[in-house]
Structure formats: C-alpha cells, structure tokens
C-alpha cells in the first residue's frame, strides 16, 4: 500500500516533499446528478495505444485513447519505474478503469461514457502540462464531457 511508512525512507521523503504547484485559488465546478453526467478518464500513467510513439522523457503533452481501445492495445510508457506494473499487466482496469466506467454507464449510474479518454505522463512538471491541459479541456467539452476522473500511478 502507499502509506508512506511502507516505502523506503528516501523514496517516501522524496514523494512527500515533491514540489507541487501552489495555486492561489481552488476552482469549483458543479453539475447535474451523476446519472446525467458524461464521464472521461484522464490518466497520468503515460498510457499510449500500441503503435503510437511512447512518451519520451518528460513529454508535457497527452495521448488520446478512444473508448473502443482494446486492453491488448494499451501500453504504459511512464518514465518512472518506481511503481508497480504487474497489476496493470494482469488487468488494465487497475490503472485505466474503462470497463468499470462502461458498466456504470450501462447500469445508468452515470449518464454516459466519453468517446475519447486521455493520458499524460505524470512525472512532467505541471507548469509544462498546463497549456496542454487547457487545450484538452476544449476537446472534452466538444465531446460534451462534464466530469473527469483523474487517475495517477
């Protein structure tokens, strides 16, 4: 588990002390009930669809993952090796819960599932990601998405 006490002390210290952006405001967007929301996954696992260029180094951009992407087409190209890959190897829903989201959509718990989902490479400086994230917001709105679940690794 990722209680910091379960990690080697140097790694725990580095993770806890990792510099995070210090935002002056906290935006807050409300919306309809979950059963009327259109939901997308945005991962920071460095996911790519097989055949696309993997993330290199700390690329700040993102990759699109269409909703009909098969599990065998997904690869993790995150630069860090300090997180478990074996869970994803066995079941990609551990990182990218598209099957679960589709089930929630089919059951009517959420309104619908976005046509496209996305992944960044999370070790990138958030300041470098910002313009790409803002551009992504436009794409999400174009797909009528009004709720995003952010999945780290």
């Amino acid at each position: 588990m990722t209680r910091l006490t379960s990690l080697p002390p140097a790694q725990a210290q580095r993770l806890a002390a990792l510099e995070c952006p210090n935002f002056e405001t906290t935006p807050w967007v409300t919306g309809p009930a979950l059963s009327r929301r259109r939901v997308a996954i945005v991962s920071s696992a460095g996911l790519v669809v097989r055949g696309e260029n993997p993330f290199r180094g700390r690329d700040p951009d993102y990759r699109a993952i269409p909703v009909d992407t098969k599990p065998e087409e997904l690869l993790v190209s995150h630069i860090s090796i300090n997180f478990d890959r074996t869970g994803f190897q066995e079941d990609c829903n551990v990182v990218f819960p598209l099957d679960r989201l589709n089930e929630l959509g089919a059951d009517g718990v959420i309104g619908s599932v976005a046509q496209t989902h996305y992944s960044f490479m999370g070790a990138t400086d958030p300041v470098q990601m910002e313009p790409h994230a803002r551009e992504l917001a436009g794409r999400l709105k174009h797909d009528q998405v009004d709720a995003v679940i952010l999945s780290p690794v």
Partner: protein
Amino acid sequence: MSALGHYLEEEGIATVAISLIRPQTENTKPPRALWVPFELGRPFGPPNDPAFQKRVILTALRLLERDSGPVIIEDFPDDDPRAQPDPAWHPPFVPAAAADSSAETLAAQLEREIPLLLGAHDRWLARHGRTTIGLSGLSMADYGRYVADWVREKAPPSPRDGFSAPLMLRFSVDDLKAYYLEAGAAGTGKPSSLQLGDWFWNETAAGAAIYALRKTCLASQDERLKLIAGNFMVPAARVRGTV
C-alpha cells in the same frame, strides 16, 4: 494529477482525482480527491476484482455530487487484498546464477534464460489474451539480444530510427521486465507485486544482468546513459543498499 484537475476545473470541467500520495494532494488542494491506501501503480486496487474496482471508482465519482467543497479529500477505507503475498504461488524454474559474474557470463546466462520462460509466457498469453510488451517495438529475440549486447559493454547502436540508443536501452529493459513478470505470474496462485519483484531481482539472470548494466552505465561518460541507468532501470527500492 491534482494540478491537472485544477487546470481542467478552471476551464469549467468538474474533476475528481484519485490520490495515492496524500501529502501531495493536501499540498495541491484539488477540488475533490479520494485517497486510496493502495500501492503506487494500482490506483483502482486489485487486478481482476471488478466489484472492488467499481467501489473505488464509484466512491470517487460520488464526490462530484457533494456541495461541500472545495476542497474535499476523502479516504477510501479498505486495503487492496492482493497486496498480501500468496503462499500458493511458485515462480517458473530458472537456473541458479553462476558464481562468475563477468559481463560475458551474465549476458550469456540472460540469453539462455529468456527462451526457458517461453512456455510460461505462452500460458500467460493464453490466460489473459494480451501482453504489455511493446515499448521497444522489437521482437523478444531482438530486445533480449540488445540488452545482452549492452551487458557485454558493446554499446550497440539504436536499432530503431528516431530513437536514441539510450532510449532504446530503456524501452528494451522495460520490455524484458514485462516479459519476465508476465511469465512469472503465469502459474497457479495470485502473487503480490513484492513476490514477483523479489523473484525477478533476486533469482533471475535478467535481474542480475540489469543490476550489472546499471553499474557499468553509471560509469559511462554519456550523461544521458547515466541518467537512464541511474533512474530508469532498477527501482529505487531495489537499488542494493536500500533493502
């Protein structure tokens, strides 16, 4: 991750983040986050446990219906049951390491060991129908040989246009690890990540070869190679001297 939430929310899209490192989330103050007590790399918990995963995602999504923010940081109450070791799991057979740890011996052992795991990896493919090998774009024989050539200190050129040799080394090592860890999990039982990691790093010729490769690359004059060797081959928790 929380920063991405901030930017998207500023643009008018509601977000909820899964949090794996609670102090980071507390510092970034996202609109909504669900902290989960799972290991890094498993934000939705155990593999092949749809009911558990669905509870995680639904607990997170329900935070979107709260009107008490910002900031909401909730804790998921349950641990990942797959974090526990499975005594019923046994790794596939690999020969014991030779006492001689010269570069040539390590490389030759690696090249002999890779095909020994083919049967186990075929069982993995039959059971799961997929593999996560593929970053290098090379065949198993080729990424295995590429890593072995690096172990032999040949500094082989990149086999792929547009990809530098150090980057191809990184992707080839990633593919080699994926091949072993998938083969390692192919038998009966449900091993924890720690069990698989202990086997790979302590018992296989591949693990020994990557340790040796890290050491020789760190002595290189090529700064990019040193960076990759130092940070992106052996997990920090496995660098000898820390465990």
